[in-house]
């Protein structure tokens, strides 16, 4: 499962401005709505529902919100780099500034989890994360996220 398969170049938001976790999730949902043609509302509901189960902030300023939607044709990702870190109720209480949203169709099962695990692994790499933080160009960010794939693929 390569990140290039689930993240389109235009699904990267290089310098998102958000003041709260809720606003951030809304922005992500709206971007995802543009890509998938679903409504922002239903996407937002699904990821909010997942956040109620526990924050998807994984520490070190990174969050990976995710959820499943019945009408989605395939696995879709949106990546955002925030201008200013915001509180995401993460486990280590660090404010979050790198966010990867992952949406999967209802029947995706193991693929959904594999994709999530892949994203978590890429974003655990200190070098990649430093590069992502240092850049505010969508194309550069897209390259960092997907090129790491080529060198790291097992």
């Amino acid at each position, binding site marked *: 499962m390569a990140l290039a398969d689930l993240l389109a170049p235009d699904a990267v938001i290089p310098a998102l401005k958000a003041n709260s976790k809720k606003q951030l999730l809304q922005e992500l949902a709206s971007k995802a709505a543009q890509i998938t043609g679903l409504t922002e509302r239903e996407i937002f509901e699904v990821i909010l529902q997942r956040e109620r*189960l526990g924050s998807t902030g994984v520490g070190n300023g990174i969050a990976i919100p995710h*959820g499943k939607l019945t009408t989605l044709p395939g696995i879709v990702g949106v990546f955002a780099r925030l201008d200013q870190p915001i509180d995401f109720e993460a486990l280590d209480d660090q404010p979050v500034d790198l966010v990867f949203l992952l949406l999967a169709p209802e029947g995706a099962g193991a693929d959904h989890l594999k994709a999530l695990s892949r994203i978590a692994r890429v974003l655990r790499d200190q070098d990649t994360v430093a590069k992502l933080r240092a850049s505010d160009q969508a194309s550069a960010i897209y390259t960092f996220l997907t090129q790491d794939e080529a060198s790291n693929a097992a």
Partner: protein
Amino acid sequence: MMLEAMYLVILIGTLLVLISAFSSLLAFRFGAPLLLLFLCIGLAAGVDGLGINFSNASAAYFIGSLALAIILFDSGFGTSIQSFRQAAAPAIALATIGVVLTTLFFALAARFVFDFGWLEALLFGAIVGSTDAAAVFFLLRIGGINIRDKVRSTLEIESSSNDPMAIFLTITLVQLIANGTPLSEMGVDLLISFGLQMGVGLLAGFIGGMIIVSLVNRLNLERGLTPIFVIALSLLVFSATGVAGGSGFLAVYVAGLYAGNRQIRSAPTLKRFQDGMTWLAQILMFLLLGLLATPSQFPAIAVPAIAMAVFLIFIARPLAVWLTLLPFDYKREETAFVSWVGLRGAVSILLAILPLLGNLENATTFFNAAFIIVLVSLIVQGWTINPLARRLGLVVPARIGPVDKVELELPGTALHELLAYRVVPDSPVATGERIPRWARPSLVIRDGKSMRYQYAGRLQAGDYVYLFISSRYPRLLDRLFASPLPVQSDDAEFFGEFSIDPQRPAKDLHAAYDIGLAKDELELSIDALLTKRLGGKAEFGDRVVLKNVEIIVRDVDDQGRITSAGLSLDPDSNRPNIPVFLSAREIAAHLRQRVKRRQPPPKTPLGPPPSSLAPATDSTDDQEPQPAPGEKQSASD
């Protein structure tokens, strides 16, 4: 002349002890089993090395027994009743049934390898039947790793309570052989004598513990005398029980366990003193046993002895542990680890002196072979415990960061103590968390000036805070003063990538990850679901596989409720799949499956070897893989 000899003996003795103490520096650095070093120093100084000729077996046995009593008292004293409760049943099963089984299996092989009679083979088995408390404690604690509570407690309690069993068996067998009584005539007497030894030992231990606690708390002894008083009392318990026909070793352990878990005056001083005494006892015991041995006799017996050591490590102990732990539902990696940490040590060598004292025919063979077995066990198992624990996923990341704390003893009361914490940067108190009232923060020292807590305002890094507190303070306080733990990649692997609120309903989790729940389980909270799957009791670090994800217990409160949980996306992908050590539940599930698949049900052999029951992982046999509960085919990507 007399005086000169005395000085010489003391000089040599102290030098040896000093060298041993000094070698601990090396041991910590290289992770070598320290006790092995002590033993080797004794060997090197002995008759075949520097030439110290010490061959007084009865003196060695006498001093060794005293040392063992001191060690056992301290290990009881240091065992908290919580960890005792957690692991008492399996540990005591291992300490009794386990020792007997190990002895039997070992004897079966020894009979043929050494051409012994049955009684002699059994005696040999009993000599190496128990695990060594000193070695187990040292290697589980000092390695700088945190082994899972349940497994650690099981091993520690097993190792400190199985000596009485092995000692009883050995003494009984030596007497039988010396008197020439056949085993068949002894049956009932043996049981009675066993019951008497252990019964009197237990009872005397309890009473002794009570006496120790009440005397220490009641008498206003000189502070410096208290630890001496306690040690002397413990030896009194040991010897009086022995005189009364009970097991002194069991009594002294029980007395320690009792005293260590009561409010006892100057407990910190006692702990420190006993810690020192235990070190001294260990050094003396290993040095002396090393001195007593004659390594030039080893080669003659090395091959069969090493063969027996290998048999003990790889077959007798694992088989005995597996059978003993069957009813306790241990996970395979836990059983594997428990059977690997079957370190033999000083007690085995000590017991090997008994045949010498009883003038048995093959006494030297017993002693030398036991010595070699201990060496092999310390080298092979002692050196591999840490890596194995990591590989099996039994190492728990530290729960809180380092704490800078001093405990001060207060005169006149057993119930309170004064704690001094240094405030470390970014600890919860330094970032504005308040100290609870019950902790009675009394004094703050900042930049060398003292002030009352009420006027100190927000605590700053570098402050010292003095708290006057009941000596049973909860962990919470440490947590408040701990430096933050950075989230490490290891932690993500251990705790899972995402956090899950255990109070939420399980059906939300099911909706998000499709975890294959049964209908009735959908109604539960996640906490209840996990607790149910874990068999009623959740412990920090427990893992539950739910279809494609794994939920990990990140924290449990005092009532055993899960307060925090994590979700891992690739369950057990890096865990080794151990083909043996199935628990009774797994075997039952496996048999059910077999019966279901083939109608009419095939005859299931009784007590089949464990390997034949394992899911076919790397065998060529084309059976469908059968996922046993709690086990998932490792998914590689």
